């Protein structure tokens, strides 16, 4: 069969539909009026979805992926101007009124939204909200609908479904809420489910659970799924076909294997090349994609990726490439598949020469600082933390405050960082990693244990002493916008610290220029304000500021997690080069383990305020000995479809227990897959005795009574 894509329907002309498609979108264009002009968020999206198929739509923020999906659901605000064609089971949806559309929503097509925190109505029980979805489309009684709601909750894996259906959304964790959303989406056996970043706000182990539930939901309903995400890893194991979007248009489409193993459009190449790999011991160079996505107001002619593309030709600036088949005479795949297509003037060359990301984009791999060539034991410790404890009283009441409990945010952790090395602190939200660095950064006497920075203990420091240490210890935060004063020009921001430490004016200006160069910005940037920079550049400014006083140790608190994927790699590369050049040590806090594997020498895995495993990054990742580390690693999706298909996941049950009331003995036992298989006498030890970190070999320790190495990658 042939498929002529995209079908232009500027006049709303009826185009013959693709037989067999449940959902077919052709030439979809969406624009919004805005203060700076008309924003064309979607510029011609076409795809067809066969029954039961999973289509992944990948793109960064502003690529138009979410707007397209909202257009399909008819949920865009009334200011949006939509043209093209959207057909559901052959029926044209564009131009339908709210009443007709609402009959379809939740019945034929349903949607799972990103943020489960705000996507459920706070004032109704989850059972009622699901029952409502049933009753809108089915003529059933209240009790019947409630029964159905409980069944659905059971299907999506909510324990004690009957009882929990009477709970309100705020009584659920994020993962549980997302399950509720899925239950609601499948309530009426839809033919299409659109999942818009369904796992983005969630921790990795919870993400793995939710992906599994989505799989179950698909099995139960036979629905086709459109999975929208910025995370290529999530797509690799889940989708049949992928559509990569950039600046409101699809730039490459194909089967998952096409996209992941044979990308033919430079943006896709860069995107894949910029991903640090969790599953490769050899560090790979990352390919940063310089620059930023274009503004969608008055987009210039030509390829929208041209300003960032190293392969750009002059024709690229004049003519926007069509989404063409990559191989001439390529027969479209089975069913509705339009084969592998790429929107690039040079895709033939890429195909013929088999170019890879590193061929197209400049990539470097920084080495280790000179000091790190000495054996670890002989280097001095820049940070030494021993038995650190931080508890918060849990209080209640406005007038009569009273303590009702204690949160054990950090409960006796020990680690050190030697000169020239990077230690990563990883774990899911609530594990205590943020509290740990806050404790270190305040330089105050800890509640228990000791903290020594560059050999000096924080206990007993006076203000002068703290001031001295602050010179050697700096920090970069996650959100660059929030940590830069918008009213100061960059030069002042960078000079602030120098001023406090009495560096004379002349020297300051020179140092500012030097710092800008160090982080890859130009001297002309000194007089600009933070708002004039993109996210990636702002983070570079934050890094420059952290380096102003030539620190020895830099604390990096999730420094790249607020950045888009293609920009992330540039910042990671920068951090590595700086470490090599300036012999820095990093304390790197992150939840993204792939980034950690790339950047860190050593890693400490935290769970509920304790370190469960610590050691050399390759040892911990290759031969994890603690069941939690194993689960964590196995939960992370790899951007490698073949591996993903073969992998067996260790999916953790349940949610994180409250840190105000941690389980006795081993804190992980309520979710530990190993514990569940132990004989009662052995299991008793986990209940009674808290395991301490025990050596698993040189520079590798794990806190488990029955630690046993297992490879999961």
């Amino acid at each position: 069969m042939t498929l002529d894509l995209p079908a232009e329907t500027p006049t709303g002309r009826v185009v013959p539909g693709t037989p067999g498609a449940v959902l077919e979108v052709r030439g979809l264009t969406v624009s919004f009026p805005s203060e700076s002009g008309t924003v064309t968020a979607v510029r011609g999206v076409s795809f067809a979805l066969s029954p039961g198929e999973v289509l992944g739509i990948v793109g960064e923020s502003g690529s138009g992926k979410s707007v397209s999906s909202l257009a399909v659901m008819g949920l865009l605000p009334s200011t949006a101007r939509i043209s093209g064609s959207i057909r559901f089971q052959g029926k044209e949806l564009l131009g339908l009124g709210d009443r007709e559309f609402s009959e379809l929503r939740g019945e034929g097509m349903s949607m799972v939204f990103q943020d489960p925190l705000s996507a459920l109505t706070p004032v109704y029980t989850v059972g009622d909200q699901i029952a409502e979805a049933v009753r809108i489309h089915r003529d059933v009684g209240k009790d019947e609908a409630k029964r159905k709601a409980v069944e659905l909750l059971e299907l999506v894996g909510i324990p004690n479904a009957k009882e929990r259906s009477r709970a309100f959304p705020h009584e659920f964790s994020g993962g549980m809420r997302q399950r509720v959303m899925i239950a609601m989406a499948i309530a009426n056996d839809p033919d299409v489910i659109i999942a818009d970043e369904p796992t983005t706000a969630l921790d990795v182990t919870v993400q793995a659970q939710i992906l599994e539930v989505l799989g179950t939901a698909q099995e139960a309903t036979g629905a086709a799924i459109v999975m929208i995400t910025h995370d290529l890893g999530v797509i690799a194991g889940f989708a049949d076909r992928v559509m990569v979007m950039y600046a409101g248009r699809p730039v490459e489409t194909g089967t998952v294997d096409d996209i992941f193993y044979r990308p033919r459009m430079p943006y896709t190449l860069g995107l894949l090349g910029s991903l640090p790999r969790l599953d490769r011991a050899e560090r790979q160079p990352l390919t940063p994609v310089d620059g930023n996505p274009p503004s969608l107001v008055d987009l210039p002619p030509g390829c929208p990726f041209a300003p960032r593309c190293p392969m750009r030709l002059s024709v690229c600036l004049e003519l926007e490439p069509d989404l063409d088949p990559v191989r001439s005479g390529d027969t479209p795949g089975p069913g509705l598949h339009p084969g592998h297509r790429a929107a690039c003037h040079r895709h033939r060359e890429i195909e013929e020469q088999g170019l890879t990301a590193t061929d197209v984009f400049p990539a470097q791999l920084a080495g280790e600082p000179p000091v790190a060539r000495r054996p670890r034991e002989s280097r001095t410790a820049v940070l030494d933390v021993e038995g650190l404890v931080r508890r918060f009283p849990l209080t209640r009441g406005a007038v009569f405050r009273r303590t009702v409990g204690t949160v054990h945010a950090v409960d006796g952790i020990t680690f050190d960082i030697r000169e020239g090395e990077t230690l990563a602190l990883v774990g899911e939200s609530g594990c205590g990693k943020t509290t740990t660095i806050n404790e270190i950064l305040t330089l105050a006497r800890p509640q228990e244990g000791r903290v020594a920075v560059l050999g000096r203990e924080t206990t007993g420091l006076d203000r002068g002493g703290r001031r001295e240490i602050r010179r050697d210890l700096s920090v970069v935060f996650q959100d660059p916008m929030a940590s830069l004063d918008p009213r100061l020009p960059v030069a002042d921001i960078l000079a602030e610290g120098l001023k406090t430490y009495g560096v004379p004016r002349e020297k300051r200006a020179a140092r500012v220029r030097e710092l800008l160069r160090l982080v890859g910005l130009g001297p002309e940037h000194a007089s600009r304000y933070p708002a004039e920079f993109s996210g990636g550049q702002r983070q570079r400014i934050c890094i420059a500021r952290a380096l102003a006083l030539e620190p020895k140790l830099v604390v990096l608190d999730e420094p790249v997690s607020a950045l888009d994927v293609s920009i992330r790699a540039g910042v990671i590369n920068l951090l590595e080069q700086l470490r090599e050049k300036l012999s820095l040590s990093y304390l790197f806090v992150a939840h993204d383990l792939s980034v950690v594997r790339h950047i860190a020498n050593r890693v400490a895995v935290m769970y509920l305020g304790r370190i469960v495993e610590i050691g050399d990054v390759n040892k911990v990742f290759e031969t994890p000995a603690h069941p939690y580390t194993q689960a964590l690693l196995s939960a992370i999706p790899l951007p490698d479809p073949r591996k993903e298909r073969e992998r067996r996941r260790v999916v953790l049950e349940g949610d994180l227990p409250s840190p105000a009331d941690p389980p006795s003995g081993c804190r992980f036992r309520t979710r530990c897959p190993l514990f569940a298989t132990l004989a009662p006498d052995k299991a008793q030890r986990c209940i009674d005795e808290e395991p301490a970190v025990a050596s698993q070999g040189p520079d590798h320790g794990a806190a488990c009574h029955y630690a046993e190495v297992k490879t999961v990658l």
Partner: protein
Amino acid sequence: MLKFLLRRFANYLVLVALATTMGYFLAATSLNARANYEGRNPRPSQTSIDAKLNELNLNNHTPVVKRFTRWAGDFVRGDMGKTFDERPVWGEMKQRMGVSLRLLLLGSLFGAALGVAMGVIGAVKQYSFTDHFTTAWAFVLLSTPVFLLAVLLKFGAVKYWNAHVPDSVHLYYVGEKNPGLTGTSFVLLRDRIAHLILPTLGIVLGQVAFYSRYQRNSFLDVMGSDFLRTAQAKGLRRRTALIKHGLRTALIPMATFFAYSFGLLLTGATFTEKIFGWHGMGEWFIDSIAKNDINVVAAVIVFSAVLILIAGLIADLLYAALDPRVRIR
């Protein structure tokens, strides 16, 4: 739930005690009752002034702490002291509370209901003519001083309504009822309503303006919320989703608002009471300050503090009824 309310009640009680204490101290130190006697002609003797002041617990030569302890002691025993003309405070207070509550209750209930409705309409039809129109009027009303509004109402009633619409209800603008009127209870009720309309309007208009602004904003927030989108994605029509999922959520912040503004209305109603000749608490407050009547001022302070206590409890109840998130404690 009951435990939660009891705890809140205890909290409020402490606040009431604090507010009253501070109010008493303020009144007792800044108002000088002695001046009233000293200004009399013929001027009474020093000893008789002191004796009188001591009897009424108004002697500014007695340390204020001592006066307060005596007042508080009497208060706990149910005695609120005497007014300047030596009548028990409580007797008059009972009457005046009734007057005030009749005025405020109706005014704020209508004001809140209409204001919420207008706010919702304004939000749903954002930037439409209706929205601009109501917004403009709300700002005009909010910036009109209450006494001007009251005078305008009075004027309008006399000049236009009563003069040109002769067959309808004659609107009165002084007092609560015609003193000499006799007849069936229906006639009496009708008379009362005719008296009530103007002053109630005086309060309602300001309240409507106030609520409509807040409700409009809170509803706009809800209209952009994710859960509303979810409700539509389930298949609810936009209007149904707005009413079922939006309205209740948007009302949550209004619960606190409603209760407290009711408590605070007392001061706002002062002008209304004065201008329409209603002998309520607000009027009493102003008059007693002018007369340096500390015991009455203290009594009014107690009244408004208790009003706020009740309002707070009602707010908590409303809040808990609307928002399940605060129920479990």
